[in-house]
């Protein structure tokens, strides 16, 4: 028997089984939501049908799905970095707002500025500068906002879950204040009380995105914008950063095992701040891209998710669903974008509240997280199976059993410490 091929197959099977829980989680979430739908006197199949149709049924539906997916993907990439670095960042919402505020301010300021004479000759040059500056400002503001939580965790031991949740509230109120006061659109000041900034000049807007297929081009008449491409490119960049660079190695090392990291001479505090800084930066990008690419002004209805549409939270779900891998976050974000858009169609067609989708999101989180635990236990069991592995050494039978409870004990000891 070919030993090597055998272990290769086993490894592949194992990986398949590892991936299965995510799908099972999805399936379970669908089952539970079917129950909810039945309770609402609706035919689940019809409801899901309308959802699918609403998400990808038409060109415009698909574009809307991708539009929704874009901020989720930005946040998801950031959350992936944070979680890989061991930081449970729940602050996507606040960091997104911080980024949007800074980026919008920058874009408004530069939009009002006079174009330097030498640039006026090259069309688009100044546009590029405005957009880039706004993106950088958005990234930095989000990064500092996230980095603050990282700093508090690294130097004062403040739990980052709590601090990021609190910082979300502060950001929302800060935005409400600024949009009702200093940043309020001068055109509407005194007439109505919709908190919003002035509209960005065209030069400060991210261009629309369409694909040169058919006539007119695909997506030419939709709201799809270049933010999606930026996000996808950055997902790949961050994948390379995390798994191919020494800095990414350090972030992951700290995330997996702080003690071994300090043993290895890694500055644990610095990596904690760095991963939160980057995570916040990506959430900040989500915010500023939402303004530059879609809304062309920062506006809210005063409610917590008035501007973000909860993308800061949905990004967490997408990151988990994408297996904490930035590449995996791409389809995961598209999926959740589709859920959100499809739910509206479902609501229009059969009157099921679209907020049901919030429940479905929650269910998926619960199931994915519990399947993580399932995977953990499986890998523990596998430890014992691979006790005396193969290719390089002689094979012998193994006392599988002895390692089961032992490794379980270890796990609890680790958790306790």
């Amino acid at each position, binding site marked *: 028997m070919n030993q090597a091929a055998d272990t290769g197959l086993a490894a592949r099977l194992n990986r398949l089984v590892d991936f299965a829980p995510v799908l099972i989680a999805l399936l379970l979430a669908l089952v539970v939501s079917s129950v909810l739908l039945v309770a609402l006197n609706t035919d689940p199949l019809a409801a899901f049908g309308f959802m699918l149709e609403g998400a990808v049924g038409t060109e415009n539906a698909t574009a809307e799905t991708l539009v929704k997916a874009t901020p989720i993907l930005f946040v998801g990439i950031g959350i992936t970095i944070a979680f890989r670095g061991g930081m449970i960042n729940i602050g996507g919402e606040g960091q997104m707002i911080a980024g949007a505020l800074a980026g919008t301010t920058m874009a408004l300021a530069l939009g009002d500025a006079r174009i330097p004479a030498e640039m006026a000759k090259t069309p688009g040059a100044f546009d590029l500068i405005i957009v880039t500056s706004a993106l950088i400002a958005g990234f930095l503001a989000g990064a500092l906002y996230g980095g603050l939580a990282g700093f508090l965790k690294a130097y004062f031991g403040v739990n980052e879950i709590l601090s990021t949740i609190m910082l979300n509230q502060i950001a929302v109120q800060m935005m409400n204040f600024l949009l009702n006061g200093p940043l309020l659109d001068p055109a509407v000041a005194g007439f109505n009380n919709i908190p919003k900034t002035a509209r960005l000049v065209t030069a400060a807007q991210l261009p629309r995105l369409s694909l040169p297929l058919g006539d007119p081009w695909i997506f030419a008449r939709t709201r799809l914008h270049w933010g999606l491409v930026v996000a996808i490119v950055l997902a790949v960049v961050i994948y390379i950063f995390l798994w191919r660079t*020494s800095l990414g190695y350090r972030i992951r090392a700290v995330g997996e095992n702080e003690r071994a990291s300090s043993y290895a001479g890694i500055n644990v505090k610095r990596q904690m701040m760095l991963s939160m800084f980057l995570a916040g930066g990506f959430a900040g990008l989500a915010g500023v891209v939402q303004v530059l690419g879609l809304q062309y002004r920062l506006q809210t209805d005063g409610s917590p998710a008035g501007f973000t549409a909860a993308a800061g939270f949905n990004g967490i779900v997408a990151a988990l669903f994408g297996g904490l891998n930035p590449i995996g976050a791409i389809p995961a974000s598209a999926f959740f974008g589709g859920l959100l858009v499809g739910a509206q169609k479902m609501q229009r067609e059969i009157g099921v509240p679209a907020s049901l989708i919030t429940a479905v999101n929650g269910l998926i989180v619960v199931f994915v997280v519990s399947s993580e635990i399932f995977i953990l236990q499986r890998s523990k069991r596998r430890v014992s199976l691979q006790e005396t592995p193969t290719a390089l050494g002689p094979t012998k039978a193994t006392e599988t059993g002895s390692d089961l409870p032992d490794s379980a004990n270890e796990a609890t000891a680790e958790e306790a410490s």
Partner: protein
Amino acid sequence: MSQTENQLLPTGHARIDSLTMSGIVKRFPGVLAADEIDFDVRSGEIHALLGENGAGKSTLMKMLYGLYHPDEGEIRINDAPTIIKSPIDAIQHGIGMIHQHFMLVPSLTVAENIALGMKSSRGFQLDLDVVSQRVLELSDIYNLKVDPHLPIWQLAVGEQQRVEILRALYKGAALLILDEPTAVLTPQEVDGLFRILNQLAADGHGLVFISHKLHEVLEISHRVTVLRDGRRVNTIPTSQATRPKLAEMMVGRPVLLEYEKNPLQARDDRLALQDVSALSNRGTTGLDAVSLQLRGGEIVGIAGVSGNGQQELAQCITGLREVTAGSVTVDGSDVTNAPPAALHAIGLSYIPEERMIDGVIKEFSVAENYVLQDHGHPKYTTARIFMLFNKIRQACRRAIQQFEIKTPSTETLVKSLSGGNIQKLVLARELSRDPGVLIAAQPTRGVDIGATEYIHKQLLEERDKGTAILLISEDLDEIRALSDRIAVMYEGRIVGEVVNDNVDVEQLGLLMTGGV
């Protein structure tokens, strides 16, 4: 004496005259963990179960204790076929197990711990006075000397073990399984335990003594069963066993038990500690003015019961704990409180005590773990940014071959390697960094004989190359086999230092427990 009386133990419970496991087979997915094993224990007998990690000892005993169920084979108690469904079932059949790691709640008293999980004779009301009374009776019968009213945390390790034994006896154990009971004890405590075991046997209990320490098996048991790779190698009367014979049965080939040590060729001082003090994790004094010199080409052993400052000592030298007073010098330069990265750069290597937590990142691959310190080193990166995984894998593959690490590939996650192989990986990594000073803390704890032999040989080779090695170990045999000098730690201080030449073990044991 009538027949029935004869079958009662001093506790009043029934005796197990014979327990037989025959043809026991246990399969786990892909592995045959127990392959037609025969095993039996009789009343009044101490039967040692010997084997390497993964040989099947624990699997076999867990089937006896109802934690696993055999796929094939039969268990007979007093000749009656018995199926043991669960630990509760096992206890009702008179089988008790003393785990290596005690299952006691530190803040509760002895009596409360023993009463845990048992029905009170008064329904919802606690009957601790009844329990205490019974505990006193039992400790009287077996001379166990335990005060039922003391909280566990106030007891020494040996006493806690006696509580475990008492609890098993309280529940009516006629047959006791002891899983590596001496692993945590000092030499004096081991003597105490052996006296208790001998008395239990004399009173008609059957005992299974799981161990991998050959001299203990030879000292305490009546018969030895050796397991290897899930099979029984043989069962022999201890009187016919010798250390080399048992070791060969365990490993399957002759094993070196004593090492040929080249004469000491000590060179200059490489590591010097001058009055080093540090706090423990709890904020109490962890190290108290420790001074120590280490020369190139020598191994200094630090003996002591764990928790007496050994860990703090290693961490102070390796930059992982703040030195509050005194100085640490490596090759003449002051490195007190230098960060670990700076210490790595001047040739300090450290094999940490808790290798699963400190020494490796379990979720990382073998190759990634191989460059834990050197992941940013110019030889493994371009411009110190992009890691050159081809080069890392190459270097790792060489180490895998040289150190005989059993792993399917360099990409295997470390968590799926066995303890011995993880320790070899840590050793390979630390030695590949060509250290001038090596701190080795418990380098062979939990490692099987074959790998232990290998690690010891590597340490001696490193010594002959001129490395200064600090060997911190609770295993006195290991310390005595390898060290040139031995220092004993007690309560954060070095209480004695001797040249390793016909050292009196009793004397060392006394030093380890604070007596002089």
